[in-house]
Each structure stands twice: as structure tokens, then as C-alpha cells.
């Protein structure tokens, strides 16, 4: 990113923070948390300790960060190197991101950037300019992506409550600031469990590693009655609903499953991962030393804010998480596809100088498809 863009974004982010200190708070037990931040074009500064909202606000004003982070873990000595921090516990966190849900990039919402010649173009298999296949993909605003991500969050919540016994009040959903949601579980017995245990929880939620015996299919002497039933609890019940569709189908379909044999059922269980497993990012849940984007801070991948979601159904990130003002700005835009923010459509822009509201300018600059003029 060029110097002019950096200055523009730093000033814009700083203005946002100054006007929205009410959104930015240190979490519970701040003196046990590790904080970190990044500057535009800069590396990560982490192992920081902040004890109050005031210290946080000062950091935002003094350092003009592009991104701000805070650990879900609590440490005795959060600002020492990792091996000396003395990990105590960590809230359980799940990350559901649109990129993990889709099998392919959404055609109308994705653009490609060529790693060889830097050409930006509509979605394709190779760079239209130099034919290189070394491409990076950037997704712009996508309502369908957000819709499917929300559905996944709801499915996750149900498992957290019904299976894992988590109190609904302790589940807090945040929009990640780009195209996903972070689900925080506060005050649970899972706070004390380590990385390997969290990997097991991830596998459970993602429906990974299930064996036929768990679902009543033994290698020998299996009968229909032992297969999952509609009213079973946990994965057995969810699998039954997926397999049979309706209660009345159970008899017919369970017979088909039995006829298919053990090996086929085993194979099918693996396939069901894609259809019924919850698509969380397991690495996020397993990593107990991670620093997460701080709620209330701007995500420099989009210029949108990571924000608490009160009502998931009604929440529209492209309105509710877009806090930058609408002062008209001139930018050089190279955005070959359309996107929509605050109910307004923008683009496509074909290497042209355009005047757009600041929130759209920031969005495009963060996505790497516009620069200051």
C-alpha cells in the first residue's frame, strides 16, 4: 500500500476510534490479557499489556493501528514471551467464515489479483493479461455468503447449547469485520481445557471421525432398530433427520443403509461431514495462544468493524458494521465488479477516477482495488 493511502486510512481509522470510544473496551480481566496491534505495511506488535479502556484508547490514538487484537487467553504475565506467560485459561472461540463454507468462489462477488503482473480482473482461472495461474482471490460484499454464514452460526449455537451444555446467555456473537462471525463462549467449564481437548471439540462440532458403530451400524449382526432415530439426542438425531428426511422414511431408508453394508456407511459418514458438520475453522478453536481482533475495532481487510451482534437474523454487516462517514472522496478505482454498502451500489470501476462516499473508498482501498488521488 502506498504512503498516501496509508496516511488516509490511518487518519480515517483514528477519526473513527476517536468518535467511537464507546465501542472499544478491554475485556474482563484486562491485566491478564495479551494485546497486540498491526500498523499498515508493518509487522505485528504483540505481548502487550493494557489495563484499562483509557490505555486502549491511548494506544489507538498514538499508534494509529490498522488492526487491534486481544487474547482470549488469560495469563499470569501477558507481556512476557509466550513460553513464560503462564497460561491460565481461555474463553472458547469459534470462527465461522464464508470462505470455509463455499466450495467455489461466488462468481459475481469475487475478483482475482495476479501475483505475477498485479492485474485485477473478474473471476477466472488465469490472469487475462499474462495467463499466470498464481492468483489471489478477493471477495467483495456478498449477501448470500453472509446468509449461509449466519445459518451456520445458528446450527453451531444449537450444538453448543443442547450437546455441550453451554448456557445460551454466555454465547456472544460478533461479526468479524470481513465475512464471518466469531462466537465467544464466556464463563464455561471449557475455559480450562487445552489445545488438544479443543481439537476434539472441533471434530465433534464438525462431525469428524465418526465410526459406524456410534450410529448403530456394527460389522456383524446389525439390525434396523439400532440405527439412528428421529428423536435421538445429539448427532444420532441430527444424522437421522438428514438421512431420512421424515419419520415415515426411516424404515425404507434404514433398510437401504443396511443393504449397502458397513464400508459404504463408513464412507458416507465421511461425506456427511460436508453436509451436516458445522464449518468452523478448527485452527482458531484449537489455538489457545491466539490474539483475536478486538471487538469494536476496524478490520483492515474491509474497513468494516468487528461488532457485537444483538439479533443475528436482522443483522446486516454491510449496514450495521459500516461506521465510516459518507463524505465524498475522489479515488482511483480498479474494481471490475459491483459491490454494495449501506444499501448503495458501487462499481464496476474500470481503472477510473471516481467520487464515492468515504466508507466505499475505505472499503475499496482495504480490498486493494482503489487508491488515493
Amino acid at each position: 500500500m502506498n504512503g498516501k493511502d496509508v496516511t488516509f486510512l490511518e487518519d480515517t481509522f483514528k477519526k473513527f476510534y476517536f468518535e467511537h470510544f464507546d465501542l472499544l473496551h478491554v475485556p474482563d480481566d484486562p491485566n491478564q490479557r495479551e494485546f497486540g496491534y498491526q500498523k499498515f505495511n508493518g509487522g505485528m506488535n504483540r505481548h502487550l499489556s493494557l489495563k484499562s479502556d483509557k490505555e486502549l484508547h491511548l494506544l489507538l490514538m498514538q499508534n494509529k493501528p490498522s488492526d487491534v487484537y486481544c487474547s482470549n487467553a488469560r495469563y499470569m504475565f501477558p507481556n512476557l514471551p509466550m513460553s513464560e506467560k503462564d497460561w491460565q485459561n481461555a474463553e472458547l472461540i469459534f470462527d465461522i467464515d464464508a470462505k470455509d463454507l463455499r466450495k467455489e468462489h461466488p462468481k459475481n462477488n469475487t475478483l482475482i489479483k495476479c501475483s505475477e503482473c498485479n492485474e485485477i480482473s473478474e473471476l477466472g482461472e488465469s490472469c487475462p493479461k499474462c495467463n499466470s495461474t498464481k492468483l489471489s482471490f478477493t471477495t467483495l460484499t456478498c449477501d448470500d455468503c453472509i446468509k449461509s454464514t449466519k445459518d451456520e452460526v445458528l446450527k453451531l449455537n444449537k450444538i453448543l447449547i443442547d450437546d455441550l451444555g453451554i448456557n445460551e446467555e454466555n454465547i456472544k456473537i460478533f461479526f468479524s469485520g470481513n465475512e464471518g462471525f466469531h462466537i465467544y463462549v464466556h464463563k464455561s467449564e471449557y475455559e480450562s481445557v487445552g489445545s488438544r481437548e479443543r481439537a476434539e471439540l472441533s471434530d465433534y462440532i464438525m462431525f469428524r471421525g465418526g465410526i459406524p458403530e456410534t450410529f448403530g451400524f456394527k460389522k456383524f449382526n446389525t439390525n434396523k432398530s439400532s440405527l439412528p432415530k428421529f428423536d435421538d439426542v445429539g448427532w444420532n438425531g441430527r444424522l437421522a433427520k438428514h438421512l431420512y428426511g421424515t419419520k415415515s422414511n426411516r424404515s425404507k431408508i434404514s433398510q437401504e443403509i443396511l443393504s449397502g453394508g458397513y464400508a459404504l456407511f463408513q464412507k458416507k459418514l465421511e461425506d456427511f461431514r460436508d453436509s451436516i458438520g458445522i464449518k468452523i475453522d478448527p485452527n482458531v478453536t484449537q489455538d489457545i495462544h491466539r490474539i483475536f481482533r478486538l471487538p469494536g475495532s476496524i478490520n483492515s481487510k474491509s474497513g468494516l468493524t468487528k461488532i457485537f451482534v444483538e439479533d443475528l437474523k436482522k443483522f446486516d454487516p454491510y449496514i450495521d458494521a459500516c461506521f465510516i462517514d459518507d463524505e465524498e472522496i475522489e479515488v482511483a478505482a480498479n474494481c471490475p465488479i459491483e459491490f454494495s454498502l449501506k444499501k448503495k451500489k458501487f462499481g464496476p470501476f474500470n481503472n477510473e477516477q471516481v467520487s464515492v462516499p468515504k466508507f466505499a473508498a475505505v472499503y475499496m482501498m482495504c480490498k486493494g482495488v482503489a487508491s488515493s488521488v
Partner: protein
Amino acid sequence: MIAIFKLSWYTIVMVNLGNDEIVKYPFLTEAGKYLNDLGFSLEQFGSDPDLKKIVDNAFERIITSSEGRIFKSDPSSNNSALPLEIFSFLIAVILLKLSGMNTLIRRFSLAEARRAEKFLEKDLMNHKDITKAKLSLQILQELFSVTVEKIDEEFTILVSDYLKHSINFHEREWKLINRKVTNGKVHLTPHETVRLVRKELDRHIYTKINSSSTPEMIIGFETYVDKLKQLAKKFEVKTVESKEFPPCIKHAIEVLEKGENLPHSGRFLLATFLLNKGQTVEQIAPLFKNAPDYNPKVTIYQLNQLSGISGTTEYKSPSCEKVKSQNLCFPVPACDTIINPLQFGRKRV
């Protein structure tokens, strides 16, 4: 009289143990006190012909465990004036300490854990004698911090407690997905409940034996100890290793060679694997040059971090399970017997 045992490794579990229970769970008792009260010294076991049977028993107990079998209880022996089984356990520990053979201590701990497990399971299911069932629940609680609730014929424990123990198992049936899970609890049979803590029970016994002090050689024990030293040699394992990479590593290298994006977890796997195999940062760095986001400075920095050159930690190659959960595992039959990619191609000779 010489103080009977200088073994300081017996912690008292806050339950009241009768003779019956000490026979079942000899590792739980304050054994030194127990034997002291009966008035025996270690030297007596080496010299008194009447006590020789106990030393023979103790030796047998070790041999049995070294063969992977469980020492069989003989209930009648425990009704005599001298509870032979308790003695044989304690003398076995002394013999093991005198032999200093770690491989035998490991086998002994496991066999003793499995023996205790059988009793625990039986006690858990004891409907007639509620105190026995309660005692086994108490042992689980105090030794392993597992709170077990009994609901009809099933037992439930908190998911978080379950996970802390189940992660030590590699068999798939122990994965949480293969358990009945409702409302934050895992449902288990009595057998599974007890099996869940086998490794910890094993570790508990092993740690205690290992941390106890070794007495001076006792006259009359020399032959037993020499035989144990001979026996331990049988278990020495020699291995050879092939130079072939496991499929997950081959896959990671292929992805990079094609210039495709290998996720962070894949890069971590590849780098730690090669570092653990003895390659240098300079040898490994060029592998990443085809990555779409290749930056030589960052690559060297990160490799130095992983190798422990820059930081304080030398990172270990992730386990097969972790690799699997990251969708980076492409198993071949030779992977069936390993739990870490580093073990691929290692064979016993």
C-alpha cells in the same frame, strides 16, 4: 527395628480403606504405616524363609506384568494373618527399584493399573453394597478429578473432564463424536468410565514408583534383582528408519512445487517435520520459494522461530491426529501404526 519402608510415595486418599480395599488398590494406602503397624522390616524379607514366599510372589507379579498379563488375585491368601497380595505388591516395587529397569517399571505400572481397573469397574456396578460403589466414585474423584454421576445404569461425566482423559487415547471410539453427549455430559458404561482413567492410573503408579527412593541392596534379594536385569534386556528395541517421506509431507512439498497456496498449518507441518529430521533452516527455506506469497525474509524468520534458534521453543512436528483435523493427511497403509509423521518408515528389528 529398622523402619520398615522409607517409601514416601504413598499419598493417602481421603477415603477409609479396609483390608479388602488395600488388596485391590495397594497403591492407595499409606503402605509404610500399614506394614510398620504389622512390624516387619525389609531385611526380614531377605532372610526369613517364611517370608520368602512373598518375595517369590512379588517376583512372579513382575514377571506376569512383563508378559503383558495381569496378576491374578487369590482371595484366600488375603484372609491369612499376612495379606500376601499387599506385601507382594510392595516387595515388587522394591525389587523394581533395586533393578533400576525402567522398562519393567513401565510394564508393571500398566499391569497394576489394569488390575485395579477390574476392581474399580466391579465396585462401580455394585448395587448390593452401596459403600463399595461410593468408594470407587470417590477414588475417581480424588485421584483423577473426575466427577462421575450415576443415572440408572449409565454414568455421566462433564464433557470437559471427559476430554482431559480421552485425548490420551488414539482409538477412534474415544473421540467425542463417538460418544453420547447431551447437556454438557458424556454418557459412559461402568467399563468405559474406568477405562477412561487407565492411563492416568498407570501414570500415577509409575510416577510414584519412580519418585520413591531406592533402598540399599537387601541381602537375599540379589538373585531376584539380577534375573530382572537379565529379563529387561529382552525388551530392548532397535529400530531402522527409511528415508522416504510420509504422504502428508510429500503432499505439502507437491503443493508448494506447483506454486499453489499451502495453508499455514501445512507450512508448519512441513517445516517442523524437516527441522525435526535434522535439516537446517537454509536447506528448508528454498522449498517455500514458489508459494504465491513468498517472502524470503519472513520465511527465514519463521523457520528460525520454529527451529528454536530465535525463540526459546523448538517446535515439534504435529501429531497425525492434528494433521488429520487440518485436512492435510493422505494416509497410506504404512500410516496405520504411527501417531506422528516423524515415525513414518521406522521399523523394529
